[in-house]
């Protein structure tokens, strides 16, 4: 079927560097010495540990229970003994630690008894629950829990399966599609049935002809008529959700909306595979395919257990002597790892060994000459040099006006900038400042609300008390008047009350001033 395709503006064509790692089949990585399994691997709250030090676990056994609907469960990726439940460094440039379960493998890699659910006869809600418990999250890198995305997708028109893999160097999805096309198609079919969509569009960049052929063959073998495998032009970032939707459907997701508002939901090919495994085999997510490439002797793709320390995994590709760090993800959006032994997580699609020769340090930053190259390259059609200008000037409101929030941090702008300005770094900085300011504002707002409510309650109580006293006094006065006895008692009570109220008003004013001061202080800081 000849699919009508559309274009998005901007984009770049960096060298692919996929040939290095795409040639050899996926191999299973050997068991590492120990596994460090972070309990926070997806958006949402971290999972709660349900094992303790000394516990024996089997492969696939629950070790972290999802905490709330947005969270996702975590499982032991091999059989062995829990030797620690403690904060460990996350694969995140911040160098922050997160609670992790450390497992010493027993070498048997023994699965717990698996039982596939009878998902066809289950309600959508319980299937989603099952996926949450199986730890199925987006495998493309972002790691958003899949069950949440599916829940948001009632009454959809299109399902987009993202096999674009537009970043250079990464080939894990390419290999997956070539080797496990049948499972991916089956998984996509399950998602289609769950969401009751009419059409499934599988977008694959046309630099992966084997993957396209394999997926097409799998679609035909499965006799699926609602599927189309579409070769999309190779143009980074064609795999960006909004860009891929544009290319495949011609629709632009409005800035303030999500794709589901247009009736489109998007899943990565790896996620489709996870869904199939979870529902057809009852297997939770305990491993993923990771591309090992860059400054290594033997690039390739490995099926690695979640929690494998990156240095142990990377050793399989034999990094060269001058390797000076690891990048997780691709060279455009990947992030530098804070240490070489951080663990592989569900979002670790690629590890690039870096060296000064592979990625030379950028030449010194020069002033922006407003050449506009960045704007022409921006797939979100922003004006990066304006964003840069306002970010540099710390005028974050202005940066917001120029749509900073629509920036997907794809790096196209920095790639083409002749002045070597690390634009994305500026944008990330501005975004974090804006987020921090919003958080502070929210905290201040809720503090004020709390304070005002307390104030209101105090005053109400005061008023009620005064009223009661006044009533009592009046009754007393009436009684006393009736008895023609002393009235002053009631009066003195009223006076004391009025003085009380005045005191309270002054205190309130002082407190308000203090809060205001604290607010402006924190805003300036």
């Amino acid at each position, binding site marked *: 079927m000849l699919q009508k395709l559309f274009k998005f503006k901007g984009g770049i064509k960096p060298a692919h560097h996929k040939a290095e790692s795409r040639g050899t089949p996926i191999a299973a990585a050997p068991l590492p010495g120990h596994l460090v399994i972070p309990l926070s691997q997806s958006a949402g709250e971290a999972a709660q540990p349900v094992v303790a030090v000394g516990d024996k676990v089997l492969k696939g056994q629950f070790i972290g229970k999802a905490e709330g609907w947005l969270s996702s469960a975590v499982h032991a990726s091999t059989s062995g003994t829990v030797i620690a439940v403690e904060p460990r460094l996350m694969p995140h440039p911040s160098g922050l630690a997160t609670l992790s379960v450390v497992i010493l493998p027993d070498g048997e890699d023994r699965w717990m008894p698996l039982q596939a659910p009878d998902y066809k006869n289950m309600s959508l809600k319980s299937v989603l629950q099952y996926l949450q418990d199986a730890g199925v999250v987006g495998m493309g890198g972002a790691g958003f829990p899949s069950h949440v995305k599916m829940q948001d997708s009632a009454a959809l028109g299109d399902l987009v399966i993202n096999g674009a893999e537009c970043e250079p160097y990464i080939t894990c999805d390419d290999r997956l599609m070539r080797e496990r096309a049948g499972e991916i198609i089956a998984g996509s079919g399950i998602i289609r049935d769950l969401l009751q969509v009419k059409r499934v569009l599988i977008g694959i960049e046309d630099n992966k002809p084997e993957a396209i052929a394999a997926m097409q063959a799998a679609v035909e073998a499965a006799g699926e008529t609602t599927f189309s495998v579409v070769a999309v032009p190779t143009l980074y970032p064609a795999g960006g959700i909004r860009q891929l939707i544009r290319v495949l459907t011609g629709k632009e997701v409005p800035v303030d909306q999500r794709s589901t508002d247009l009736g489109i939901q998007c899943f990565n090919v790896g996620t489709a595979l996870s869904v199939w495994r979870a529902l057809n085999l009852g297997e939770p997510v305990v491993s993923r395919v990771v591309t090992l490439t860059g400054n290594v002797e033997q690039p390739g793709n490995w099926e690695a257990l979640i929690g494998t320390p990156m240095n142990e995994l990377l050793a399989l590709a034999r990094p060269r002597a001058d390797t000076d760090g690891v990048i997780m993800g691709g060279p455009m959006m990947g992030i530098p790892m804070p240490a070489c032994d951080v663990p592989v997580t569900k979002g670790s699609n690629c590890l690039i060994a870096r060296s000064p020769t592979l990625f030379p340090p950028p030449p*010194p930053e020069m002033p922006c000459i407003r050449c506009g190259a960045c704007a022409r390259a921006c797939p979100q059609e922003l*004006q990066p040099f304006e964003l840069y200008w306002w970010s540099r000037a710390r005028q974050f409101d202005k940066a917001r006006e120029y*749509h900073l929030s629509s920036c997907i941090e794809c*790096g196209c702008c920095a790639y083409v900038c002749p*002045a070597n300005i690390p634009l994305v*770094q500026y944008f990330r900085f501005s975004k974090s400042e804006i987020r921090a300011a919003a958080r502070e504002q929210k905290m201040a707002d809720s503090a004020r609300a709390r304070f005002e409510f307390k104030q209101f309650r105090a005053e109400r109580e005061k008023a009620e008390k005064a009223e009661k006293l006044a009533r009592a006094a009046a009754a007393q006065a009436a009684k006393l008047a009736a008895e023609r006895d002393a009235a002053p008692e009631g009066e003195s009570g009223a006076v004391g009350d009025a003085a009380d109220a005045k005191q309270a008003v002054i205190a309130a004013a002082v407190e308000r001033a203090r809060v205001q001061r604290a607010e402006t202080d924190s805003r300036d800081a």
Partner: protein
Amino acid sequence: MNFISPPYLHAETSVRRVMNRVMLALLPGIVVYTALVGVAIIVQILLACFFALLFEGLFQKLRGRSLASLQDGSALVTACLIALTFPPLSPWWLTVLGVFFAIVIAKQLYGGLGQNPFNPAMIAFAVCIVAFPALMSQWPAQGLYLPLSQQMEVIFGVSPRIDALTAATPLDAIKTALKMDSFTGSIQELLKSQSLYGTFAGRGWEWVTTAYLVGGLFLVQRRVITWQVPVAFLASMTVISLICWLVDPTRFSDPLFHLFSGGTMLGAFFIATDPVSGCATPTGKLIFGGGAGLLAYLIRVFGGFPDGIAFSILMMNICAPLIDVYTQPAIFGMRRGGKKKEREHE
């Protein structure tokens, strides 16, 4: 472990490369110009380049900045534009003064590369033509080929400036004619009678400007500049000159003449396209180029200066920031359902 942030890949590009391309694109013009007036123009370019680097280096140092910026080539582009817009036999100090104003006043004092609100080369031209109108109007007469030694003597002030050196340019001639009430006959006849008219514009100059056009198209093709500014510039000049010419063909020259005379091509492709002092949004660029072309025509035909490029571009420089603010393009996802750009791929 160092934490260079993503992206780790970078296109093969640098400010220096951009500037080198611009200079490369000026080359055909320089060659034809040299053939027309002699080696003097090369001397002027070298002179301007030398002092541009000197001033730039000096002031970078004074401002406590690194001298690495000397390598970005921006000062050299400015120097070339000054040498090409000033009369080729200007005294050496006039060129140096122009370079001083461009590099020191218009660029460094505003904060250096990327910060200047005005086009430095045009500031140089404007200041010098206001201060030294006579010297800035001495264009070599057609057919006057001075030997190199004599040209050097003129430039470096060893021998007195010869009156015969200069003659009215075609643009001067038509302006003078326009102002003479008693003028009868047509512009074309006038130009021809003074042997100022070549094949389709000023004699000799038409080939220099054609060479600039060739270089400019190269810049567009290599995406060093975008099409909006030059197209809008040339279009607005064509329209306004066409209107005037249709109204009174005897007193106004035809559009072709205007497009290939004076600084039109240089202005449209090399000067109005300066990104730092111009507009950055696509619509803004159209307005900027269109405005500059229109003003250039009005100044060159009705104003008091021989050509209008410098002042028109400076005026548009003033408006550029405001134009940019009001022409911000819609971003991806602000057009509903993508109906607006239904470009098909296959």
